[in-house]
């Protein structure tokens, strides 16, 4: 069976790889942050801004690598490429996210529902 992320199970599913926008936050600087989720901890999402999905990131890699090679020869290792992406850490609490599903549907999620480690989030129960 193939995986399927639906608006109903999004809260329990992997958030990594989805495009997201911070719709509301108590910190006004974070509102409007748009990018792809690359990592997740219990309380935060790590968002790489400027990319809508991983394939766009992959395409950008070659350009970044050649740029590094031009400025500093004998480098361009993958680890150094990673530092050229602009990452932002957004706390899950006090924020509202709009996730774009792979089938282009958009879901608005209160960040408070997402507070849990990725492996614990599946079995979390919600009242609604």
């Amino acid at each position, binding site marked *: *069976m193939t*995986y*399927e992320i639906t608006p109903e*199970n999004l809260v*329990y*599913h*992997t958030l*990594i*790889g989805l495009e997201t926008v911070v719709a509301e936050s108590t910190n006004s600087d974070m509102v409007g942050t748009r990018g792809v989720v*690359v*990592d*997740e901890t219990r309380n935060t999402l790590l968002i790489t801004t400027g990319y809508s999905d*991983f*394939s766009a*990131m*992959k395409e*950008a*890699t070659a350009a970044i690598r050649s740029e590094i090679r031009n400025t500093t020869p004998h480098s361009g290792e*993958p*680890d150094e*490429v*990673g530092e050229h*992406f602009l990452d932002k850490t957004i706390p899950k609490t006090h924020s509202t996210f709009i996730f774009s599903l792979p089938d282009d549907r958009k879901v608005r999620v209160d960040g408070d529902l997402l507070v849990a*480690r*990725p*492996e*614990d989030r*599946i*079995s979390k129960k919600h009242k609604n």
Partner: protein
Amino acid sequence: MTRKHRKRWIKNIAGQQIKRLFELAESISEARPPMADRYVHIARRIGMRHRVRIPAHLKRRMCKHCGKYLVPGRTCRVRLNGTCVVVTCLACGKQTRYPYHHDRNHTPNKERE
């Protein structure tokens, strides 16, 4: 949802997540290898927490010793020695052997004698 149904549903989602995390690891491994390793780590944690096995073909894409995501030719070396597929992780240097005895009475060593 009864308890039984809920359990089954959780395992189903967990299995989907493991698959998805490995796909994501594949697509990001070129740009940011540390992230790919992180996804393998999360996939393992999900598998352990919900007692879902990591599918055999995906298990070969990670190092059993250090948990790195393995890409043949870039982060691991794959060799055949007549009895096993030997996968060497280039990060930790440890080897994992996957035996492929088709007929246990006909190992190459015996044929030589």
